[in-house]
């Protein structure tokens, strides 16, 4: 693939979601949508405009929204329920648990403005624990796409798949990592770069930062592979174990708390199957604050340079 710095700027994954949902709505009348007064932000408004009879704005009442979606799904509809990731997972967790996950209903929930990259609105709107919460729900599939192409593809796959799915989208525009027409599978990680010294496993917006980091590392004589782990659950254990076998060192990168997300889950798989030196890049047991995405990534340790630093750490463990 091209050098990361040469990748064209693409749409935000939330925009990709909105477009994919609209297209799905045109193909399948079972697709319906609910939102909690944030449809202009989550981009479910595209669907709402075309299908006003199949869209239900639930107002600022997330618990009701999720259970309404469960009722719709129990009668054969394929509801997509969207709001900010923080409100979706934190305010309606029990509804996700008992209305949706327990019976395993075919509800798709979409959390936009995830991580800290939504920026200026600050900690109440930022979502640093949604992946941990979503992964804790039995029967749920958890998706975290890295660009518009993978987001659209994964939204389509989620609609075809029968069962509850959480899809994490983000506010800012992101570089287009994949080419149009690229196909994906739920649960199958994408190896973007081969490497021999270390593998960087990233998810969401951090995939791009991992690609940039791998190029910096290359300049330092370190061969770093890059994997896009777009499905956090079920996790592609084979890809993780084989990366550990091939390179002997792993760095995970996520825009999320270190606890309970990508790093924790990869560590668990490695510890049980192939103990391997690992360093995780993510947010360290804190809430963030207002600021641009750029300055927040810098302050909370999510830049390519932070990934390079973590890689140097893990390589020290490897050589011990």
């Amino acid at each position, binding site marked *: 693939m091209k050098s990361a710095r040469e990748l064209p700027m693409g749409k935000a994954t939330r925009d990709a979601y909105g477009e994919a949902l609209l297209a799905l709505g045109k193909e399948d009348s079972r697709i*319906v949508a609910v939102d909690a007064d944030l449809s202009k932000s989550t981009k479910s408004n595209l669907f709402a405009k075309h299908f006003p*009879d*199949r869209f*239900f704005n*639930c*107002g600022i*009442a997330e*618990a*009701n*929204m*999720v*259970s*309404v*979606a*469960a*009722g*719709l*799904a*129990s*009668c*054969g*509809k394929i*509801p997509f329920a969207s709001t900010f990731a923080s409100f979706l997972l934190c305010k309606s967790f*029990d*509804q996700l*648990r*008992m*209305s949706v996950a*327990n*019976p*395993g*209903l075919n509800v798709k929930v979409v959390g936009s403005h995830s991580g800290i990259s939504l920026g200026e609105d600050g900690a109440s709107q930022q979502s640093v624990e949604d992946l941990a919460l979503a992964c804790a729900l039995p029967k749920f599939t958890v998706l975290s796409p890295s660009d518009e192409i993978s987001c659209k593809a994964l939204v389509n796959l989620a609609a075809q798949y029968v069962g509850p799915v959480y899809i994490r989208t983000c506010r800012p525009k992101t570089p287009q990592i994949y080419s149009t027409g690229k196909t994906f599978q739920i649960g199958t990680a994408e190896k973007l770069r081969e490497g021999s010294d270390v593998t960087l496993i990233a998810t969401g917006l951090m995939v791009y930062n991992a690609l940039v980091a791998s190029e910096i590392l290359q300049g330092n004589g370190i061969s770093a592979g890059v994997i896009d782990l777009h499905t956090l659950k079920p996790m592609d254990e084979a890809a993780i174990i084989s990366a550990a076998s091939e390179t002997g060192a792993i760095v995970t990168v996520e825009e999320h708390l270190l606890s309970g997300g990508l790093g924790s889950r990869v560590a668990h798989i490695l510890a049980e199957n192939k103990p391997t030196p690992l360093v995780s890049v993510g947010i360290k047991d804190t809430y963030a604050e207002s600021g641009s995405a750029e300055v927040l990534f810098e302050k909370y340790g999510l830049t390519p340079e932070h990934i390079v630093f973590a890689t140097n750490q893990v390589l020290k463990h490897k050589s011990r």
Partner: protein
Amino acid sequence: MDTVAILQNQAKILRQDIIQMIATAASGHPGGSLSAIDIITALYFKVLRHRPLEPEWSDRDRFILSKGHAAPALYAALARTGYFPVEQLATFRKLGSPLQGHPEKGKLAGAEASTGSLGQGISIGAGIALASRLDQKDYRAYVLMGDGESNEGQIWEAALFAAQYKIDHLTVILDRNRQQLDGWTKDILDTDSLAEKWRAFQWHVIEIDGHNMEAILSAFHDAQTVSGKPTIIIAHTTKGKGVSFMENNLEFHGMAPNAEQTQLALQELSA
């Protein structure tokens, strides 16, 4: 016998099932099961359009027991209408049984939602009724909730939502037995003036004696004729109704009767 007498007799049998089931399990919630059973009997034996031998029939009315702790009442009705053999009631709360402590959709044919975490049933029922409307069907959602359950914020989210979308195929029955686990509802979070509250939320409100079979049937009939708004039937009931020493006795909110109490209760109910 006329319909009302048949239903009254049926409710008596279901009350015995409830006592037997909870006694056998040595745990469960007799008080709230007995307060709701006349309503549930009316629904399963008269009001609901359902096919016990074809539980997934797509045009069926859906009943959701939002106050999931009254599971014995639901299970007795399902068994006695033929969803599963009556003998299976003895497995209530036992390992591997489809008759979980609180109902779970997917484990038991006829359980339309997984309830027990209070507050979610009305929202689920609203979603069901919306699906009915979208598909231009006529099936309805019936949701039975508790008055203690009215403490939950989600109830009021759902109240606003169902009125906003004029969901007239949603009928909620409020089992107004005036008690919740820790005491009288008025002493915990005062839920007096419930009728005024629901009217203010733009619902069609009917108040009845929840143990008067004729009144119950007439309320359901009334609800079916309302268009453009959801209906709530506030059913004034007595916790533990039908067993003298359980009536209005808070101890039997969530406690099984012992052997002697079981025998006494069954004697009273078969009289």
